[in-house]
């Protein structure tokens, strides 16, 4: 019989405490990238000269690459946590620490994928549209 005070998973628990937040890191990067792109475009179009638009587009491009790199890094970590290759079980529907751990990895991985697509979408206008007009 195990006791509630047993802290065998105390270390793991600390990692997981971050994990519920971690599944939102991907979308958070999307949100930051979105707000920064929109804010920069609004500022440049309102205050700067027409020539600054090129600088804006390059800036958004660099920001996009940075955001995508970060999301990829998160996705790789989440993929490892999901651990699909060692444990090819998709549902993770048991009330165990292991399933909870892998589930959070799975969710974080999927959210990284959607965030990656979202960032690419948001960057497209800067790629395709050359002026504020």
């Amino acid at each position: 019989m195990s006791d509630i005070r047993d802290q065998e998973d105390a270390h793991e628990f600390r990692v997981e405490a971050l994990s519920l937040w971690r599944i939102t890191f991907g979308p958070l990067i999307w949100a930051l990238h979105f707000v920064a792109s929109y804010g920069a475009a609004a500022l440049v179009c309102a205050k700067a000269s027409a020539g600054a638009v090129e600088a804006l587009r390059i800036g958004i491009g660099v920001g996009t690459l940075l955001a995508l790199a970060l999301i990829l890094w998160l996705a790789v970590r989440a993929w490892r946590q999901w651990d699909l290759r060692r444990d090819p079980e998709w549902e993770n529907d048991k009330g165990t620490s292991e399933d909870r751990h892998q589930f959070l990895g799975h969710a974080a991985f999927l959210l990284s994928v959607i965030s990656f697509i979202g960032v690419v979408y948001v960057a497209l206008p800067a790629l395709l549209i050359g002026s504020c007009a």
Partner: protein
Amino acid sequence: MTRVHPLPTAEGPYPPTEEMLNAPVPEAEQERGAKELRAAWKTPEGWRYVTAVNNSEVGKWYSLTALAFMLIAGLLALAMRVQLAFPGMTFLDADRFNQFFTMHGSAMMFLFAVPMFEAISILILPAFLGARDMPFPRLSAYGYWCFLIGGIFVLGSLLFDAGPKAGWFMYPPLATKDEGIGPDIWLLGLSFIEVASIAAAVELIVGALKCRPPGMRVNIMPLYAWYVLVVGGMILFAFPPLIAGDFLFELERSFDWPFFDPTRGGDPILWQHLFWIFGHPEVYIVFLPSIAIAAMIVPTVAQRPIVGYSWIVLSAVGTGFLSFGLWVHHMFTTGLPQMSLGFFSAASEAVVIPTGIQIFAFVATLMVGRVKLTLPMLWIAGALAIFVAGGLTGVMLAIVPFNWQVHDTYFIVAHLHYTLFGGMVFPVIAGVYYFYPFFTKKLMSEKLGLWAFWLIFSGFNITFLPMHLTGLMGMPRRVFTYPESSGWGWLNLISTLGAFIIAAGFAVFLYDLLRPKKAQGQIARNPWGAGTLEFSHDIPEEAWGARSVPHIISRYPLWDQPKLVERMDAGRYYLPDAPDHQRETIVTSVIDAKPVHVQRVTGPAWITILAAIFTGGAFIFPTFHIYTPAIICGAFAIVCVMYWLWTSTARPPKEEMREAGLGLRLPTYASGPQSVGWWGMWITMLGDVTAFASVVFGFFFYWTARADFPPEGAAHPVGLWVAVAALAGVAAWALTVAARETNARGQVALARLSLVLAPLAAGAAGVAAWAAVRDLDPTSHVYPAILWALMVWLVVHLAAGVLMQGYCLAGSVFGKLTPRYDADLRNVTLYWHFMAVKALVTAAVLGLAPGWLT
């Protein structure tokens, strides 16, 4: 944080073993527990019934009130359809037509769609979680009474021909220049309800995070709880910008501060931004909880676990985020830069991906399961069909050039009704059929249900499908009539006929919902064969929620844990009794739902109703520009809330530990992050900070949008006073932290001294902030006006912080707050962490930004 006397923690065996669960509970023990619980959870009778705060009662009132408001708003729509049936009708005049469409939209959104989510969640979330009640029952009751008062006030204005008439989004300058009191009713009445919505969101988030049954880790909690978390979070970030907008708008209406007046530097576009930063997430705020109902019904209908649980979590969280990147697609014709429009167009297309994924997950579940076509499933099927159609026109509208083409035509009306009927109305009705046995212990009629479905489904399509065409042919929204030569007459006539078919369907549904069902006898406990905990409910009804709080190890415990219900009924699990006749529920850890402590929850009270009435007064009197009674009401509302907190929350317990069942002993008091109050504060402050950020956004928005911000040669705030405000604000924060630390170490005198000095520092900060802008005239230009608005915002929050410090000081003096039992002080310190940030940001905007910007 060193504590002289640390609080005890949980002790005893956990998780329970099979032998422990197999041991029978003696008959006498079972009877004693049931008797005690019945006494503790007794619903007040007679005229005291209105004092009930139990989630089952408040949830029922809340849902029925929202339904009533929806029916009224529906009747308004019928009247408009009659007016539009033929060209040149005179059934409604232009002014009344304006009031009706404004109120139809406002009521459907603010008085039906969002409150309905909260109502249903308050009603069923605790049951999904096997919890006894929500963590703050009196807060739900308070929210309900605010909603009722505010809703009657707003809708009642129509009877006096004084309703708002500028459209549900109240665009300035039309709404700011409106001579009547309509816009004030809208702004103040709905702000009041928004506050109640945020209260419910806080309650639901804390409920889903901290009130799950032992063992229900995040990977096995019902999908509904995931959706509640996401939607609660969205409410926290979506409603505050609107509240900030309302704040600026009402300052303009009442005191002529020119936030939206271009002749004095203002900009009506700011309102559009603030409104739609709320308004678009709002669409998903009503859609996600409804689709959550589908996520509960589909597995039951398919008699198998949902396919792709993680994918649905992804879809809920992903939609929650992406839906904040869409707001400008309501503003494509306002002349923003092309590139900015492109960002929002892209995000609008991207949100389709997660939205689509959940629909595919449902279809997949239905395909691999053995589907029984029940009434709830029929409504879900109708919902999916209609929603997909609405989603497709949404994809079209996300494309900027097409959007320009159909802007402000009936195409938009058709699109938004397809998304809202498919995404909200149909799933909610499905939920009513599905959960009806749980709410009322009766079943609704199969035959009437089929009638209602086919009437509403066909009526809906007859009404709204032609509107796509009406819109493409050029009929603008919000016109009260049209000439015969337009050629839209026949389409409008079809729409009107359809509207009456919808109404007939709702009449059938309503009759079936409310007719007495005495002849039905006792129904089966789990009539649909569902796998989730709500169908472990007691028949006949018991007010205690769960007889004992189970240990959960599966997503579908009623399917996978065979003896679960039997053991719950016997009181084999946790909290099977109530020795002190106190209402309690079990609080668990966020990720793994390990039992943490036993939380006392509050019982029936008049004080919540009183508090709501006074809060109502504080919002309603200013509508008529009567300020003294409003201030008195506000003061009484504060007194009521403080009385209720003082008498019934975080009181030092008689016994430190409680035998919680199965050998587990749990503490009866928690402080800091362990306690639900701390979580409530933390989540509330996220919303509050968002509103503050929206006002600050306003400042910088003016700077980008207007060349004359700040105007040439404008007077600026007095630097010295700004610096004093920042320093005194930080000092008040530091003293509060010092009070917490010294109190925890047992140095009570020092803690009290800090709590005497802290409000003085806070007061000094407020006075200094006022002195900094005192000489500026807020009616002259938007620049001084926004500085004044920031100052007012800061001072109001400082005042709240001072009250909290005083509350803790009184607690320390009168023995409510001790070095050991210091939950209040920890919550107040958390408030002050946010307060310090707000003081510094306000000081930076007041003192530094003018220097950078000019």
